[in-house]
């Protein structure tokens, strides 16, 4: 459900990018997704494959996903640790007063595109 919304928003954003950059065709799309962003990558790929058939803009374009490691900061002892391994409880001091530094990202990193001004060999 969440993944469906995300793919719809990605495509909407791409539509604007395409207009601004005079893109004729999108060759591929690369996303950056944090490990604990809550996005299920397999499900994202399913939604993408569904839209890729239906939507001319991204017809046939593969989706690449780069994951970003999740790191949590402990406000009690001021150390950082791997979120996926230890969760919300600091492995050094046992405090639960911690917050996520990285790992919640979700962005469109880049696209490959054929533009109007590009001279094809």
């Amino acid at each position, binding site marked *: 459900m969440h993944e469906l919304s995300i793919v719809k*928003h*990605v495509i909407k954003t791409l539509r604007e990018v395409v207009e601004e*950059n005079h*893109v004729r065709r999108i060759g591929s799309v690369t996303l950056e997704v944090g490990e604990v962003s809550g996005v299920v990558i397999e499900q994202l790929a399913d939604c993408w494959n569904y839209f890729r058939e239906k939507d001319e803009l991204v017809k046939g374009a593969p989706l690449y996903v780069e994951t970003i490691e999740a790191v949590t900061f402990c406000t009690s002892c001021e150390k950082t640790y791997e979120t996926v391994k230890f969760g*919300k409880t600091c492995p050094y001091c046992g405090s639960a007063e911690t917050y996520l530094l990285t790992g919640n990202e979700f962005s469109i990193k880049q696209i490959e595109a054929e533009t109007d001004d590009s001279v094809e060999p």
Partner: protein
Amino acid sequence: MKVIELKMTVTDSNDRDAQALRRELTERGIFLINLMSAPGSGKTTLLSRTITDLAGKVKIGVMEADIASDVDARRISELGAESIQVHTDGMCHMDAGMTRTGLENMENSGDRIVFLENVGNLICPAEFDTGAHKNVMILSVPEGDDKPLKYPLMFSKSDVLIITKSDAAPYFDFDFEAVESRVRKLNPSILIFPVSAKTGDGMEAWEDYILSEWEKRHA
């Protein structure tokens, strides 16, 4: 084929739509308040009580967002306030585009407060700006005092935190001070109102806040 570097979040385009909508609403005299919480926290109950208490003081409209049902919109219209139901068709949050469409289906008389009851969910609504002037989140006592640690983004994006079902506090180990200190670490300027929509306890402070924000906009 060339590579175009974007580094855009999926919410960039929505953020632009939301800014535009917010400006338009301000011009039309509409004060839009976005209410967010987990399912069952008490959004509709709080709204019902607020509408009843503010009757005669300011005109109120309500937009109920739901994935598919319209139970909440019926509850609100029984109170005599204008209410419309927006179906998100499987989407787990409202975005600025959906909010705009919903508002177009409401009476077009300007000058009033519109409450948007967002889809019950603490993750996605925090990421998608609806174009509202104020974001209000509701945490209910039975959900526990560790919610700010679990859903930091929602707490950091909200202007107001309402802690509702305070009448249930004797039955749960809910530490109001712990919540406050956790929330303030994430968001030092957030306003916190403990209330019970059942007994009415604390409702006046919240309603005074709404009225004063309303008057600021319509002086």
